[in-house]
């Protein structure tokens, strides 16, 4: 199988380039893209990419696979090549600075995450046991808390490409809504005020690239719609 990999080592290369590798998959099986990368690394130990859990939990191996963002560890090569098993093209997630090869600098992504204050805020005295929720209140967090911060969505979003310093991006907004929707959080009004400017939420143009790529099947566009409605209700 032909594997074309984006290479860039700022210490040696003046510009990025694509390098082709011919990889033989043992037994011709349908392995994951991450397994193919391991075989490429056997040929060239200098290849840099992130990975850790190899089972879609840690979110470290987000990359652009044949034009679509995804996690290498849970993307079978059959899916990436649409069944043709002919060629893999691997690039770093688009829109953020490349540190080396497939490794990107995610500072801006984390900065936006930090900005939405991704922790429970409650100004009432702590009870003797946990703060309880009804099953219905807990259910509201489904589809939100599962995000693994892989950045596949935000780096597929044109609005995030143009304004990564101002637009929170789908991943951060999904998490913003996760805390807005939490019955135990008492900072809802302040959280909404922080998001009411023309950039943080309203740069979303509803293109739904985020929904298209999320490897966990989450729906940031819907969460953004909920935030918009909450802002509308707060300010009308």
């Amino acid at each position, binding site marked *: 199988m032909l594997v074309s990999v984006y290479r860039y080592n700022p210490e040696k290369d003046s510009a990025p380039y694509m390098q082709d590798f011919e990889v033989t998959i043992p037994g011709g099986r349908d392995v994951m893209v991450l397994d193919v990368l391991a075989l490429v690394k056997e040929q060239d130990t200098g290849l840099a990419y992130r990975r850790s859990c190899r089972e879609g939990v840690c979110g470290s191996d987000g990359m652009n696979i044949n034009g679509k963002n995804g996690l290498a560890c849970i993307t079978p090569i059959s899916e990436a090549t649409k069944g043709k098993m002919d060629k893999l093209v691997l690039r770093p997630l688009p829109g953020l600075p490349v540190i080396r090869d497939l490794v990107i600098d995610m500072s801006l992504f984390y900065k936006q995450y930090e900005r939405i204050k991704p922790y429970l805020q409650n100004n009432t005295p702590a009870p003797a046991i946990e703060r309880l929720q009804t099953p219905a209140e807990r259910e509201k967090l489904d589809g939100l808390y599962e995000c693994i911060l892989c950045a596949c969505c935000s780096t597929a979003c044109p*609005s995030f490409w*143009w*304004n990564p310093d*101002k637009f929170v991006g789908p991943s951060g907004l999904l998490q913003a809504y996760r805390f807005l929707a939490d019955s135990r959080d008492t900072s809802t009004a302040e959280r909404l*005020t*922080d*998001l*009411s*400017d*023309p*950039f*943080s*939420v*309203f*740069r979303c143009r509803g293109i739904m690239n985020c929904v298209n790529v999320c490897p966990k099947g989450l729906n940031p566009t819907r969460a953004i719609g909920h935030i*918009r409605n909450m*802002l*509308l209700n707060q*300010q009308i």
Partner: protein
Amino acid sequence: MVTSVTNLGRSGLYDWVVQRLTAVVLALYTLFLVGFLASSSDLQFAQWQGLFAQTWMKVFSLAALISICAHAWVGMWTISTDYLKNAGVRIVFQLVCAGFLFVYLVWGIDILWSV
């Protein structure tokens, strides 16, 4: 909160609501005009002039004119903050847009009231 001095409303929600409401007005105005043109097969100058001479039509047209200016401003402001990364170029672009929209608005009112 992200702030930008050139944003009129200071609020993303305000811009968003303005964009939606003006779109509704523009859609109604367009549908009405298309409907009027379709239902008057043998249109003469007198009918066309008569339509615009009525006060309610002036109000409707003025609402559409203000709507298109507001709609265009929000849209152009957004485009400029997406694609123009140089602050100097961006402010010039925004001023040119605002200038054109202002001229169109005054000129449009002038035309409407001369009918």
